[in-house]
């Protein structure tokens, strides 16, 4: 807390005062002061007059005396002056010039004048007088003072001092110190932050809003809580399998690893239907359209046919080389999609069951759906392709006849597992892609045109159309694990139920009444969501059909 904090300008002025050690230098500085003075105007006249004396005075005074009078500061001043000199050469002259010219000369004049008048004057007073331009009229003193003050910020500017030190490399009466250790490198795992960067796009997708489990439904209220939760221990957490099916007789089939179970929605009773052969597992289940038979796909490639009523296996249809991950019925034809990319039609009535083979996928077939009228079959594969096949080809031809896809779409950029036919407009097909795609495309299967596309926040694992509303439901995987309902054809989001399951929602199936959707996920839960309502108008119109359809809902309610 020494003298240091005082304004450097004072230091400077003092240093200039010491310069007369060498007369030649003094004369030079005088010259500078001359140059500077005309700009200041007539007020400078006295200083000009004293100049000649200055040279004399400085010569007359013995340098030694000067030096002794204040040894240390002069030493310091030398450094400073040297520094300033170097800086000027360095090329940042402009500002420095302004500073020196503006206020260096006056102190010189002062020192020059003073020794004449009062040699013996003490140091402090000279110092204080040095700061101001004493040669001016006393009236002007105040103004001069202000001048100095306005100059101060400039001279004390960090940049100036920094540059001084930088240019000279000689610290001015100060030391530059650094802590002996280098700062520690970042401890956070660079790999982890890289991973975060990779995941970020998942969250950056349109629709991936920070709001969660919010119902934005303007038209109606949809419960974001499941109506019922069933435990499904051991259910295989595999995206490519299809382990849920809900029959028109209101039975829900679910495959838990190697066992298949049937849950009666009207009574809540659970029956174990059967087990897969030793050492393998069930990879797909699908109810026949009449609900009497259950097709079961096995991990080793067989397709089994089970009678639901008697809980007996009727036959095993072998032939596939790898896992049968999806099944779809059309009357007596059971179509199976295989891990090798082939789709077979099995006629369950005849001994030589294989009546057709559709080859159009390079990757595993993971989505397969017959249109309800049996005209068209849609399939989606792990090769990101959607195929639509003419249903008659495999059916009519001789055993082993090969079909050709009616059309093939390669718009998806990830595995197409979600495939759904629209129940109220037969030509509409919805398909949804996996993690890298997360897009739903709606196709006109008659023309093959893509009608709509919808980008969703995450992987589309299944699609269900509402039979009664112009809406469809999609289920999603990581990171939202959501159920979403979109309206058609506006493709607006009706509702999003975030974190419907604790892990990715993999399967969904619609109740025969079309009001409740059952979803399954890797968290070993089956959840039932009442997302749609059975329209009452329909109930009144044809009572029979409506009553049989609405049985699901009423029975579920009665169980509770």
């Amino acid at each position, binding site marked *: 807390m020494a003298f240091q904090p005082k304004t450097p300008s004072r230091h400077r002025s003092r240093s200039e005062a010491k310069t007369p050690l060498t007369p030649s230098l003094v004369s030079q500085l005088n010259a500078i002061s001359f140059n500077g003075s005309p700009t200041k105007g007539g007020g400078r006249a006295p200083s000009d007059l004293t100049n000649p004396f200055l040279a004399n005075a400085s010569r007359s005074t013995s340098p030694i005396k000067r030096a002794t009078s204040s040894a240390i500061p002069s030493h310091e001043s030398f450094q400073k002056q040297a520094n300033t000199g170097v800086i000027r050469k360095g090329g940042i002259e402009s500002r420095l010039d302004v500073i020196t010219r503006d206020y260096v000369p006056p102190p010189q004049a002062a020192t020059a004048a003073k020794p004449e008048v009062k040699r013996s004057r003490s140091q402090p007073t000279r110092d204080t007088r040095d700061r101001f331009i004493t040669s001016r009229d006393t009236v002007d003193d105040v103004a001069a003072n202000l001048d100095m003050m306005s100059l101060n910020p400039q001279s004390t500017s960090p940049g100036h001092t*920094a540059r001084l030190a930088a240019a000279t490399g000689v610290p001015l009466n100060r030391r530059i110190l650094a802590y002996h250790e280098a700062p520690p490198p970042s401890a956070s795992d660079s790999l982890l932050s890289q991973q975060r960067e990779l995941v970020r796009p998942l969250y950056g997708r349109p629709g991936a809003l920070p709001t969660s489990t919010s119902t934005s439904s303007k038209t109606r209220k949809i419960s974001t809580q499941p109506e019922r939760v069933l435990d499904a221990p051991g259910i295989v957490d595999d995206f490519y399998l299809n382990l849920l099916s809900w029959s028109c007789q209101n039975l829900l089939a679910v495959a838990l690893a190697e066992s298949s179970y049937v849950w009666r929605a009207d009574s809540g009773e659970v029956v174990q239907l059967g087990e897969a052969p030793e050492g393998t597992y069930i990879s797909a289940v699908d109810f026949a359209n009449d609900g009497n038979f259950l097709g079961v796909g096995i991990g080793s490639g067989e397709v089994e046919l089970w009678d639901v009523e008697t809980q007996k296996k009727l036959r095993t249809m072998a032939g596939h080389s790898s896992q049968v991950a999806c099944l779809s019925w059309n009357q007596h034809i059971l179509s199976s999609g295989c891990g090798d990319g082939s789709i077979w039609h099995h006629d369950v009535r005849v001994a030589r069951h294989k009546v057709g083979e559709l080859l159009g996928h390079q990757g595993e077939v993971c989505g397969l759906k017959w249109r309800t009228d049996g005209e068209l079959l849609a399939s989606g594969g792990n090769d990101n392709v959607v195929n639509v096949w003419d249903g008659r080809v495999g059916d009519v031809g001789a055993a082993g006849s090969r079909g050709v896809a009616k059309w093939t779409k390669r718009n998806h950029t990830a595995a197409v597992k979600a495939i759904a036919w629209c129940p109220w407009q037969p030509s509409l097909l919805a398909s949804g892609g996996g993690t890298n795609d997360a897009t739903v495309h709606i196709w006109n299967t008659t023309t093959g045109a893509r009608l709509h596309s919808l980008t969703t926040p995450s992987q589309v694992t299944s699609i269900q159309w509402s039979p009664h509303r112009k809406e469809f439901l999609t289920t999603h995987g990581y990171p939202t694990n959501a159920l979403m309902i979109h309206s058609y054809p506006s493709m607006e989001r009706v509702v999003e139920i975030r974190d419907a399951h604790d892990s990715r929602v993999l399967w969904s199936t619609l109740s025969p009444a079309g009001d409740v959707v059952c979803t399954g996920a890797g968290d070993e839960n089956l959840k039932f969501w009442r997302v749609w309502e059975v329209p009452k108008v329909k109930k009144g119109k044809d009572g029979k059909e409506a009553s049989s359809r609405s049985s699901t809902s009423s029975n579920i309610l009665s169980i509770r």
Partner: protein
Amino acid sequence: MATKQAPTRQAITLKGSTNLVTEFFKYAANTILFQRGVYPADDFHMVKKYGQTVLVTQDLALENYLEKILKQVNKWLLTGSVTQLVLAIISKDSRTTMERWVFDINLVEPAAGDGPAPAKPETEIQAEIRNILKQIVSTVTFLPVIDEPTVFNILAYTSESADIPADEWVDTDPLAIEAGKSQQVKLRSFSTDVHRIEAMVAYRYEG
């Protein structure tokens, strides 16, 4: 450091003012390290300070490192032997200085003549500090984008007579940026009744 007990008295004593200034350096250094991306953003968490949110590192090693430096700076401030603190941002690979954040520390001279000046209210000081921190944040808009890994270094400019722990602090290069290649922007300043801190940033700019 800064406690809430005597908020109005703090700024007028040397010790209190020193603590205020040291604390300011802590937050200023953290803000710079975050804003200039010297450390990954993951390492920082938000803290309420000076009536605004400040990002402060939660990397223990860095926290301790800054703590050690600031402890010494605090001592120097008490003896008045530190005149300038510089946070230099250096390219990790080429070791060239990219930016120099300079904080000049001046002792405020008591106003001559009209007796002791009224103590500066703490709220005013805080507002000034807040303004500097905000300015540091806003410098991102004009500072050149640094797209290479960087490290930082803190330099203390002390007087010759300063008491220096010999094994911890060493004389060093000023890490200056060549005059022709640097641009400078003066930032706001703040002052307590004892100290006056002026901030400036110099950065490498070869337009």
